[in-house]
């Protein structure tokens, strides 16, 4: 069974991940990660912040391959800034197979296993890879 590693951030039921964002009903700004307490843009209170399910697809704004890292994720891995089609600029991890992705490319999320529990349950998170509709380039790993 697949269980979302951070269920507050994404929905765990579909084949393709969807992100749990929210939107301000006062000014229309869309947030991911979801914003609590009040709207950063207009200051409206939390009663104006409504949950909004966001497609995990967008365009790569920037990329960085992390070569040296002290945390639990083993380096190297690649972090992308992605402008979601829904608006927010987010940071996410690229799938290892997405090494050919460049700034400006279309990407969307798929599930990656973070950890497998003793009972066989898989904790999963969304990682991004080239959208299946996008042309796949073959000029090797990026540096």
């Amino acid at each position, binding site marked *: 069974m697949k269980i979302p590693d951070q269920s507050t951030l994404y929905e765990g039921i579909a084949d393709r991940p969807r992100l749990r964002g929210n939107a301000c009903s006062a000014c229309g700004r869309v947030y991911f990660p979801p914003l609590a307490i009040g709207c950063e843009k207009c200051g409206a209170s939390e009663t104006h912040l409504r949950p909004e399910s966001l497609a995990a697809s967008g365009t790569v704004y*920037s*990329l960085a391959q992390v*070569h*040296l*890292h002290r*945390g639990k*994720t083993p380096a190297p891995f690649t*972090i992308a800034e992605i402008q979601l089609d829904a608006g927010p600029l987010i940071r*996410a991890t690229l799938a290892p197979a997405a090494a050919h992705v460049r*700034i400006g490319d279309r990407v969307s999320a798929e599930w990656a296993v973070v950890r497998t529990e003793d009972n066989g349950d898989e904790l999963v998170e969304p990682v991004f890879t080239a959208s299946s509709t996008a042309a796949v380039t073959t000029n090797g790993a990026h540096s």
Partner: protein
Amino acid sequence: MRTPLAQLRPVHVVGVGLHPYQRPSGTPYTQLGVHSVRAALTDAGLRWSDVESAYTGTAVTSMALSRLMYRHLGASGIPMVQVENASASGSSAFRQACMEVAAGLCDVAIAVGVDKPLNVTDPQRAAGLQNLVGDRVAPPTHFALLAARYMHDYGATPEQLAAVAVKNSRNGALNPNAQRREPRTIEEVLAPPQISGTLTQLQCCPIGEGAAAVIVASDDAIARLGLDRTRAVRVLSSAARSETVYDLENFDAALTRETTEQALAEAGVEATDLDVVELHDAFTVEELLYVEAMGLCKPGRAATALEDGEFEIGGRVAVSPSGGLLSMGHPIGPTGVGQVAEVTAQLRGEAGERQHAGARVGLTHMVGLGAVCVVHVLRKD
């Protein structure tokens, strides 16, 4: 009615002092701080008992650290407070000291930056914020992302970014208070270890400790205490802002642009009037982004201007003559105060081998996690 600093009582830097920035050691912060305060008092020709108020810029050492340090100078009972504003802590402490003198609440105030990396904390964690990348985006990756986008937008190369560290290492080599004192070639800067994206170790500022102190005084104090007016440097403006919603524009650059514009306008100075600039070059790409955001060159032109020597000591405007955060170091609390010390030395014509000839107007700039930005403009009359 709102009144900018320039229209309040004039405030002058009258003394500066430093403890060299260095790798974290067993030396207690109290010793680092007192060393810098004594140096600043000697430089100003003042006694500790002349100082009426103290602001301590500090972020990663301990709560309540001021009095344990200042008592070693003789407990005079003056007000003292810690100012925490991430990387801009020292700049913010300096701003508080300037405002207190300008408002007429006291005649002599001191800003001391002191830190040792003993208690580095995480506001995102405190706020209970979650995101998709967890701990995978450390500061070098934040700036590696900026670097990649900058190179994409303007066609700059990794070598052009690395050139920032080459220049600042040359300046740092001339600074006895710098943590990195070796001049580096482009090959050395580009050599492994690679940290994140195109950023190598020498394109990231070192982790360190240190202290810096700056004493500010009113005209009254200069006259009453018989200070050397010819060495006083006027603080023309103090601007501080925080991040708003910028969408795709990089927030560090946007915040730098807004805050610098305000500081220059309040000082009545144009960007082209600046002779020396100390800016937040914690990572090489930042210097290119910020000289553009400050209006020192056109967008996308920073790498070329750097290659042409425009930002060298002796160039059009000396950028980070101290060696900047990359070479002088970034011990956090001290950094912003140390920038004021460097600009003061430059405007006095006392910067020795690092002297930018004819320096008259200078600017200091720090951004801090949050994000916040603090800019000061200083002038030697």
